[in-house]
């Protein structure tokens, strides 16, 4: 019997369950802390800038901010889950256990990515839920909003897995978060319209993967976004596929989990 793409359903579900169980055991750290940070952003930025024009008729700054914050929450949570999981397994000396399970590589990758995705969507939805007190519960396209958060979380869970495989300690992971993910998030349109930035800073949107993700969420939430939604959706789908393929390639090569 050849090794198959899907081989061990119970094994896959157990690994996925472990990834979810692990962060649910420490909800204050993994869910509540980012939620509180996002509520603070809402209070501070929203409170200070609520009269600011966002260039879209009938849309207040608070309405503009909600999908950005939900996306940002999803990005950080989904990235951190697999990255932390892989690095802590290296730290705990259990990373090579992964090689001993009769679970296919695709199942292993999906378990880590889905675990991160679940956490990302959870934080994104809770952020949205918390903002109901400020802006009400109305969402223009609720299912599309959920799909946008899911796609964002899938992309960043895949990136988190890549980083977790490639790096060997938490300092490096935090460094990657601080110098890559955080600036890209701030320059991705979470808090303001990128087109209003001067010169080169505005041009970053063309290479920033967060830009289409934020705009898809924003379109789903308020029905309008910066740029063309069709292009954003196509870019989002391309990001979902390419991030997964890169993670699969690195995992298959055994980076961080096998010795060659």
């Amino acid at each position, binding site marked *: 019997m050849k090794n198959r793409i899907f081989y061990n359903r119970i094994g896959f579900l157990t690994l996925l*369950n472990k990834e979810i169980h692990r962060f649910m055991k420490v909800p204050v750290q993994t869910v509540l802390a980012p939620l509180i940070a996002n509520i603070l952003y809402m209070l501070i930025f929203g409170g200070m800038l609520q009269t600011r024009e966002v260039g879209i008729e009938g849309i207040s700054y608070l309405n503009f901010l909600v999908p950005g914050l939900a996306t940002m929450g999803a990005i950080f949570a989904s990235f951190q889950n697999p990255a932390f999981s892989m690095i802590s397994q290296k730290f705990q000396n259990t990373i090579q256990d992964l*090689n001993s*399970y009769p679970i296919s590589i695709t199942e292993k990758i999906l378990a880590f990515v889905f675990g991160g995705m679940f956490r990302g969507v959870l934080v994104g939805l809770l952020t949205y839920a918390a903002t109901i007190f400020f802006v009400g519960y109305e969402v223009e396209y609720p299912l599309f909003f959920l799909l946008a958060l899911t796609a964002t979380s899938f992309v960043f869970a895949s990136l988190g897995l890549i980083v977790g495989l490639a790096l060997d300690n938490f300092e490096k992971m935090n460094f990657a978060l601080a110098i890559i993910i955080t600036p890209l998030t701030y320059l991705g349109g979470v808090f303001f319209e990128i087109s209003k930035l001067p010169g080169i800073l505005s041009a970053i949107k063309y290479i920033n993967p967060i830009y289409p993700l934020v705009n898809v969420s924003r379109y789903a939430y308020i029905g309008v976004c910066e740029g063309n939604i069709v292009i954003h959706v196509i870019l989002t789908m391309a990001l979902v596929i390419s991030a997964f393929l890169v993670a699969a390639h690195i995992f298959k090569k055994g980076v961080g989990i096998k010795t060659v």
Partner: protein
Amino acid sequence: MLSIKDVSMTYKKGNKEALKNINLKIEEGEFTALLGQNGAGKSTLINILAGNVKKTRGEVSIGGYSLDRNELETKKIIGIVPQETGYDFVFTVDEALKKQSGYFGIKDNKAYIDEVLEALYLTEKRSARIRDLSGGMRRRFLIAKALVHKPKILILDEPTAGVDIEMRHTLYDFLVKLHESGTTIILTTHYIEEAEKLCKRIVIIDGGKIIADEPKEELMDAFSRESIIEVSFEDELNLADFDFLSDYHPHIEDKTRLQLKASKKDLSKVFRQLSEKNMEFTNLVVERPKLEDVYLNIIKH
């Protein structure tokens, strides 16, 4: 059950050749010791079987399945107890064993987990977090973890390192019972007396090559032609008084004990010569060399 054919492994880092053309066949129900110095290649070989290290060339087959073509099938057949006592900080013993069963596709494994925990004296600790267990308990937990899917082959990489003597003997008893129940066991250890006590076959690796592979008794017979005779006397001894035994390498230990080395066929000759000299001794012990002596003898050559 396990076939290793022409397996070599060169680590890319440092271009170090850890295994050189290893050939080994282990049949069902064997209890084999894999011995060797640090860096000899034992752990590399085990890590290849576990899927942690990619071999450079050669063929490995486990339970009839090729490691290259049917890797997932081979995982179900082996259980690995690693040298490092890595453990998950978050989960309890029970949670970790349930998850381990799940990874192997077993949904409800409570009855067998109970059985394994009891056999390894861990029942009382099932609700404890693994990080709160003592070193010896963690070792036993790792054995339990390797057994939850009832592997046909159990590979133990120095399972008793750092374990106190009493617990070590508990583990020996457990392994003997496991072997009697039909599990094929491969054990690497630095405690040679452990291999001598438990294993029926000895494989010695040195410099990445197998330099000895024999049933234990045959190996010991082949490499232990001389017995050690120790004769104790009441008074202090003078080596010159034993010139008549010079063929047997006389040597004085602690002033009153004479040690000689003689082959089996010369034993009676030695006793006769001692009697003829009317030497009154207080004790006499003939010791067959231990596996440790045989091992050192092989390694040195």
